[in-house]
């Protein structure tokens, strides 16, 4: 029995972050990845007769997003990761264990909210406005190397913050378990 359209949409909306992130891995443009996600939703509805279960929808969507992202990268003459590496990354995104990510996603958003203004501005210019490091450096009157180094530090700091958040949450959850 084929899936209903609203089921397909709900699955894809729930997995939007995975599909978008896989596309962004290749496009290196979050807004283009969003566009690809929308295209994948439409295409999934067009092809809904083939889907038998929600897992099939996700696997199909990841592959469809990857193909569109590779096309995008080609059109922009970007150097893409080789297929064997993309296969491994796609497999990670398709892994159900990676979907226990709601806690991690929430922690990430809390940590983003704690960034300093300058760090927020840097990430905003970089990923929301889609500026290259050269353009960011011009805007902020820094060297390109300084921008790259700071971006790297911000990313590492965010990961450390998320790990701390999850660790504290696990500890407090543990404490709440009655003896």
């Amino acid at each position: 029995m084929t899936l209903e359209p609203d089921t397909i949409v709900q699955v894809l909306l729930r997995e939007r972050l995975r599909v978008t992130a896989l596309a962004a891995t290749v496009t290196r443009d979050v807004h283009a990845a969003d566009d690809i996600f929308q295209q994948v939703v439409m295409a999934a509805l067009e092809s809904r007769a083939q889907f038998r279960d929600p897992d099939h929808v996700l696997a199909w969507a990841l592959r469809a997003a990857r193909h569109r992202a590779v096309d995008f990268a080609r059109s922009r003459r970007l150097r893409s990761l080789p297929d064997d590496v993309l296969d491994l990354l796609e497999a990670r995104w398709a892994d159900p264990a990676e979907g226990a990510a709601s806690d991690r996603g929430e922690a990430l958003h809390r940590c983003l909210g704690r960034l300093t203004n300058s760090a927020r501005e840097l990430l905003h210019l970089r990923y929301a406005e889609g500026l290259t490091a050269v353009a960011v450096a011009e805007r902020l009157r820094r060297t390109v190397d300084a921008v790259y180094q700071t971006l790297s530090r911000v990313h590492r700091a965010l990961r450390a913050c998320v790990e701390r958040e999850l660790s504290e949450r696990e500890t407090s959850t543990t404490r709440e378990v009655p003896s």
Partner: protein
Amino acid sequence: MNPPPDVRLAELFVRYWDDALTPVEARELEQRLATDHAARAWFQTLVLQAVAAADLSTARPESARCAEAVPLSSEPAAPELLGRPHRWNRRRVLGFFGGGLAASVAAVALGRWMSSDPARPAPLDRHARLGSVRGDVTVRAADGNALPTDGPVPPGSTVATAGPGASAVLFYPNGTNVALTEDSAVTLDLTGDRLQIDRGVVAADVRPPLVGGAPLVVATTETVLTGDAGVVMTLYQAARATEVGVQRGSVNVSAPTGRPLGEVRGGELLTVGSDGNLERHAIRDTPDVYAFDPTRPLAAGWAVGRIGAAGKAPVLVPEFWFDPYHGRQMYQIRSDKQWTRGFFRLTRDSVVRVRYRVDRSGPGQVCFCVRTPDVRSPDTGMLEWNDTYVAGTGADEWQTIEVRAGKMLANKHAPKFSNPWIGFLFIFNTYDTNLGLQVAEFRVSPPGPAGRSPG
């Protein structure tokens, strides 16, 4: 000493994102991802951070605690206020239809597949909305009353942009979006199914209609455009011509009388003159070399100025016209608007050369209107040479301006996006004084090897 693996991967990632890895670094990244499970996990985390960061606004939430500080430099940096994002995108579109991402995408997606149950109401309001408003943008209802730019745009309304850098994007419920560039205007007809391009350049991403809906028809003075499938195109309504450039998909073009003029496919550009003349070209990459040829007739749509003569040689000379931006009469040469093809592609080191003469010295300008390499983006800016046209005598009658594009950014409308810049319109201006300007040569070229190094 080599940095720890996670530090090194982060360093590679931030360069990977710019496609700025050297071949050696690219192979290093590929090797790490291919062989190291932990590297793949970290890479995945980095991408997730980038995607989440794309939703960041620049304002910190008031409730945020101050945890670890990651300054840009060793000194505390004052936060820089940012204006609106420079890129329009569907990430922001989805918020306009209310109810957040899930409801918006679901409504748009489901609208196409809901059964045609007469008891069910139409899934979405047919009104369009305006977004990514920058600069001088007005919305007027059919009765002429001004409407807010952040509300619905009802059928019958006219949306207009004015001046350098002004732009807006019109969003329809089915996902169709139409970006208006500077000095453009569109009018929605009363059914909401037809959009008239009154003037200027728009970039339209036309999506298939919702179930039960009619496809959007886009019209200019010379053309009517329809297409059932999605199409991405740029349209320029000039004074005496329409230019249709299709980036993706295809569109059927007819005259207003209904006479078919043909199909325009991805990568093609069709110009339809008010005299019915048709010209079809392939859309090519904008070259980084340009030379204006005064021996050829001016293009259809050339705005101001004419071909004159200096002795027997043809030259460009200005005309006296009302400049709406300056709000007064001026002596200007103003080219046609080559939005889709562009005249030339500029980097900071591109060399601009103008050979001219004037009867008397006086202040003047050489200006370029530029866009980004993405033809669909309405972002624009100005490059300006503001100085004095110098009257020479005798053998020095003809003077030369030679300047690098990077030196033409000292103006308030300089592009806020990095180069390359695509020049789509050029202007020579002597303001309200007739200096007797004659332009014999206008060239743009990439930085040359030896020779002159202009200031």
